[in-house]
Structure formats: structure tokens, C-alpha cells
């Protein structure tokens, strides 16, 4: 594939402020994850991390359509969702460092970043862990006569879990306000989608549950924003669930440090031509909505913010060991 064949993005009919906002969020996630990758390789982060590099358009475009009161469930690759849903880079970074100032006071780490006050019901270390939880949050919203919507992010690996089918069926039979967003990044951990999944078009799985499914270019933040807007509005107005199969590509390995023996470097470099951030920047310039200098400033601001988050995390205290048993239960037992 060459640069000339890069498909155009979906910008028609969008307002400039929204387009610039989507750009800022994608750049913040990109800058954050780029630095996190380096920090991990430098041995400065405990545990292990899965970065969202290459998939930024999906969390960005979907969460731009949600209110703070709406819910999302996230995945092991959840930093982008957390940032797009409104968590500060400080809170996410400090959590990655296991510090007491982190979003979960250092108890969750990369795979469990959550902020319930922002409707971010948690990254989840279990693939597909959010299917039923999102349905439960949507059920809860309806039960409370609230107009909240839940969005479940998951991957093309997760869609082969039985709980995907159980949750889709339940959400459909109750017409729940939930949107299932498949981040189809072509790899289930270390295995290519074609080797594990019988159908090429994952959106057809919605049909079995009487739900609308559609394919979306997940590297076109405008297309994501547009499709998510329709699905979320449909859910909010009582129309029930939608399955969005968003095609994207994981720039990095399954986790940072993955030797990636299962794919060729040429495949990665080829797919990086569809970089969602670069594509959006090209559109901003061709629409006359941003200059190259303005785009550079967005990057500089994001990098400054990431540096500050890193400083905040590194200067924060570790949790007090005497608190290790706090919050196992809400109240201490007798």
C-alpha cells in the first residue's frame, strides 16, 4: 500500500472545534502511551503494560459522544479509554507507577485503572470481562429511569468469549442502552484474527441477536465519531444495543517487550501508513482548520502534560504498607 491509496477520513459535516478536540485527545493518548512504552523499557514501571498505540481514534471518537455520567467498560489495553473518558494523565500515570496518588491508589495498576465518578468502570485484566458488566450498568440505568448509556470496549480476541454471546442476547432481549465496540486490531494476544475466527466480518454476529451490527474504519476518528454518535443516540432513545466492528491495527506487540515473532515488520510498517493521528492531521490541514504550527503546538502541549504527569507520579508516595488490607471489604469484619 502506498501513501496515495490512504483513504480519506470522514470530516464532512463536522464542526471545526469538534475536529480539533478529537485531535487533541488522540495526541494526548499517543504522547502518553509513547512515553509509557519508554518508561517500561527503562524498567521504571512495575508489572507489564499493554499500549493503545495505533488505536487512539476509537476511544477518542466514542467517548467524545458520551457524557461524564455515561458508563464505559474497558480492557487490559485501557489507558486510552481512561484518558478519553476524562481521567487526568496524572491519575493514570501515578496508577501505572503504583503510587498512592493513582486513580486506584496504586491497588489496581495498568490493567485496572478506573474512575467510577467519571463512569469509567475499569480497565479489566480478563479479556471480555466487560461484556456483562456493561449490560449490568445499562440495566441499572434503565432500572433507575436514568438516560445513561453504557459502552463496552473489547477486542477481536474477546469476541470469541462465550460471554459476548450471553451478553448480546441479554442486552437485546431487554433492549438495553448499551453499545458494544469491538476494537478489531487484528490480533488476539499473539494470534492473527484469521487463525482464530471463522468469519471475516465480525459485525454479522449481531444479526444472531436481532441487533444491528456495522463495520467502521476504526482508524478514521471522524467515522468512529459518526457511527458512535448514531449508536449511542439509538441506545439512549430506547432503541437497544448496537455492535460496532471497528477496524484498527495494534502498532505495538500484545504488551511492551513482546518480541512479535508472529508478524512481519513489513506488515507493521505497511499498516502504520493508516496511522489515525496522521490521517486526521492531514484532513485538518486540507480543510484549513489547523496549520502545521498549530498541530506542532498540540503535540508540544501534550508532551509537556505527559512530562508533568511523569514527574507527579515519580514524586508521589508509595502506598503505606499498613493499608494493604484496606478496602477488601467496605467495613471491617468483626
Amino acid at each position, binding site marked *: 500500500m502506498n501513501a496515495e491509496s490512504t483513504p480519506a477520513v470522514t470530516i464532512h459535516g463536522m464542526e471545526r472545534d469538534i475536529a480539533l478536540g478529537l485531535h487533541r485527545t488522540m495526541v494526548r493518548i499517543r504522547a502518553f502511551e509513547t512515553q509509557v512504552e519508554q518508561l517500561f523499557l527503562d524498567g521504571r514501571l512495575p508489572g507489564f503494560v499493554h499500549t493503545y498505540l495505533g488505536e487512539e481514534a476509537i476511544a477518542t471518537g466514542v467517548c467524545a459522544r458520551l457524557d461524564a455520567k455515561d458508563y464505559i467498560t474497558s480492557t487490559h489495553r485501557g489507558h486510552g479509554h481512561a484518558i478519553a473518558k476524562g481521567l487526568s494523565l496524572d491519575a493514570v500515570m501515578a496508577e501505572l507507577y503504583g503510587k498512592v496518588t493513582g486513580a486506584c491508589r496504586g491497588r*489496581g495498576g495498568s490493567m485496572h485503572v478506573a474512575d467510577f465518578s467519571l463512569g469509567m*468502570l*475499569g480497565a479489566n485484566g*480478563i479479556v471480555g470481562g466487560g461484556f*456483562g458488566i456493561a449490560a449490568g*450498568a*445499562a440495566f441499572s440505568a434503565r432500572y433507575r429511569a436514568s438516560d445513561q448509556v453504557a459502552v463496552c470496549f473489547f477486542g477481536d480476541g474477546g469476541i470469541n468469549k*462465550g460471554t459476548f454471546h450471553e451478553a448480546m442476547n441479554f442486552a437485546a432481549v431487554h433492549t438495553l442502552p448499551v453499545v458494544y465496540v469491538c476494537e478489531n486490531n487484528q490480533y488476539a494476544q499473539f494470534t492473527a484474527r484469521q487463525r482464530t475466527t471463522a468469519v471475516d466480518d465480525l459485525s454479522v454476529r449481531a444479526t444472531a441477536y436481532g441487533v444491528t451490527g456495522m463495520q467502521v474504519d476504526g482508524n478514521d476518528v471522524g467515522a468512529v465519531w459518526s457511527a458512535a454518535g448514531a449508536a449511542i443516540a439509538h441506545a439512549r432513545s430506547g432503541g437497544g444495543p448496537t455492535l460496532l466492528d471497528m477496524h484498527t491495527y495494534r502498532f505495538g506487540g500484545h504488551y511492551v517487550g513482546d518480541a512479535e515473532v508472529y508478524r512481519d515488520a513489513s506488515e507493521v510498517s505497511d499498516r502504520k501508513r493508516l496511522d489515525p493521528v496522521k490521517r486526521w492531521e492531514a484532513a485538518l490541514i486540507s480543510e484549513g482548520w489547523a496549520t502545521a504550527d498549530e498541530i506542532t503546538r498540540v503535540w508540544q502541549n501534550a508532551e509537556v502534560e505527559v512530562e508533568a504527569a511523569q514527574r507527579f507520579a515519580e514524586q508521589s508516595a508509595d502506598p503505606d504498607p499498613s493499608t494493604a488490607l484496606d478496602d477488601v471489604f467496605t467495613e471491617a469484619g468483626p
Partner: protein
Amino acid sequence: MTEKRRTFGQATVEAMQNAMRADDRVFVLGEDISWGGNFGQFRGLVDEFGGNRVVDMPISEAVIMAVAVGAAATGLRPVASMSFVEFTLGAMDEIVNQAAKFRYMSGGQVSVPLVLRASDGVLRSSAAQHSSSLEAIFAHMPGLKVVAPSNPADAKGLLRSAIDDPDPVVYLEHKKITSRRGPVPDTDHRVPLGRATVARQGSDVSVISYSAMVPTSLEAAQRLAELGIDVEVVDLRSLVPLDFEAIARSVTKTRRVVVAHESWLFGGFGAELSAQIGETLFDTLDAPVGRVGAASAPIPFSPVLETAVVPGVDTIVEAVRRTTGERPSER
């Protein structure tokens, strides 16, 4: 306080009614709920509270639990019925990785006030996949509370407290005693979690038990009384939190103890009780801690084989006599 004789199942219906009348956030979900449940534990609820609060679920155990987790974390108080306790095994990820850990992983941002109700235990040749007791698995997992009532009054009071509790509570109701009658207070009765009770006072040996093994232990105590052995039966009621003070009080008095449950002996909850008693009360013991539990086999179908694997009155009598030595009547 007025009370009526009710079955265990009826008592739990009353607890559900009281909880659902008091709090709109309480709802029930599970398979065949509006029909009343396998043991009548939900009978009549749909008539009073309607289908929005008494939710018939598809046979999708994992999603029953996950929906309960999602609802509990966003402001509701679900009671999830898992029918037979073996069915929880298809939802273990949701129970163990999600429900039990949500609060801790989030640094205490949220509570998960859900109740998981499940019928366990051996009842008339239900065979290997409908006869288990899995309390040891649940009790092993930090973040889960576990209760196992032995009589209708406690069934009502513990369920009410479990629904009120801010954390996930596994409520285990033994099939064999679900239809048994006993006195039940008419009031909005509560039994606090983590509080054991002495089901029978005695001075020679303590039998520590819970769930259906409590009436079995009482029967054994009756028989042992005829042999001159005065048995105290402690009904734990809650396994997590565990009322170890009540155990210590009884064991300090009797100096001999048998821990008895229907589930498998190997790695069973009795092993934890035995270890704690040994660690903290060694000096007060006149004999090693005795243990009663099932042999390590899936529960067989044949009534003869079932009896061979599952402990009963005789097993407890023998264990108590071993604990008291060869000549118990001389003590």
C-alpha cells in the same frame, strides 16, 4: 415477638419481601425466578414486585453474575440466584475476578452490594453435578463474604443482612433443609453476619458446624448424650467473616473439638478451622482436633454409594468418640 412455623424457603421469601419493600434498589435476577425457583425461594415475589424487579434470566450464568456486578457497582442491590451451586462454576470469573475484586482493585472507589444465592449440598441422589458444597472455594477468595444458615429463622435473618451488606455475599442454602420447618420471627428479622451461635450447650466436646450439618450434629449429640458424652454444637452461620471468638469460647470450655461439614474433607473449610484452633488454642486442647467431611470423590448417584461418601450422624458420633478417647463415659 411473635413467630410462626415456616419452611426455610418461606422464610427467605419473607426476607426478600422485607428487603424489596424497604429499598427500591433491591431486585432479583436468575433462571426461573418468576416461576418461584426450584425450592420455592422466590414464590410470589413477581406478583408483588413485577417483572422489572423479579427478572427471569437466560441460562447464561456468567452474565447473570456480570449483570449483578455491573448493577451493584452503579447503584443497585441485586440478588442473583444461581440455582444449584455447581452452576456458579460457569460464572467463576465474574464472581472471583470481578465481584470479589472490584472494590479493592479500584482503591475503594466502589462497593459491590450483591447477594449470590445458591442451593448446595446432598439431597436424595442428585448425583455429582447437583450435590456439591463449594463454600471452601468462596471462603478462600478475599472480597467475598460467605454465609450458610442451618434453620429457617437464621435463613431469614442472614438473607436480610446479606442484602443490606455493602459487599458481595455468597448465601448458601442447603437443599436438604430448604423444606424443613422451624419457628421464624414475623418481624423484619436480621441476623448479623459474622456472628456464630451455640445451637446446643454441652461440656465435653465442641462440634463446630454450619448449614445442614448443624441438625445432623444435633442428632449426633442426642445419641452421644445417651453414651454419657455432653456435646456442645456451635453453628457458625457465617464462614466469612468468621466468629472465631465463639469457637474459642466453646473450645476453651470443652477442651475437645470436632469440626464437621458435608463438603469434602481434603482442603475443606474444616481444615482452616482446624488449623486456626491448633495455632491459637493448642495449649487448651486435650485431644487433636477431629474433622468430619466427605471422602474425596464426586458425590455418587447410587444411594448406597452416596451414603458411603457423605458424612452423617454416625460419622460425627465416631469422630466425637475418637476425640474423647476409648472410655468416654468415665470422663
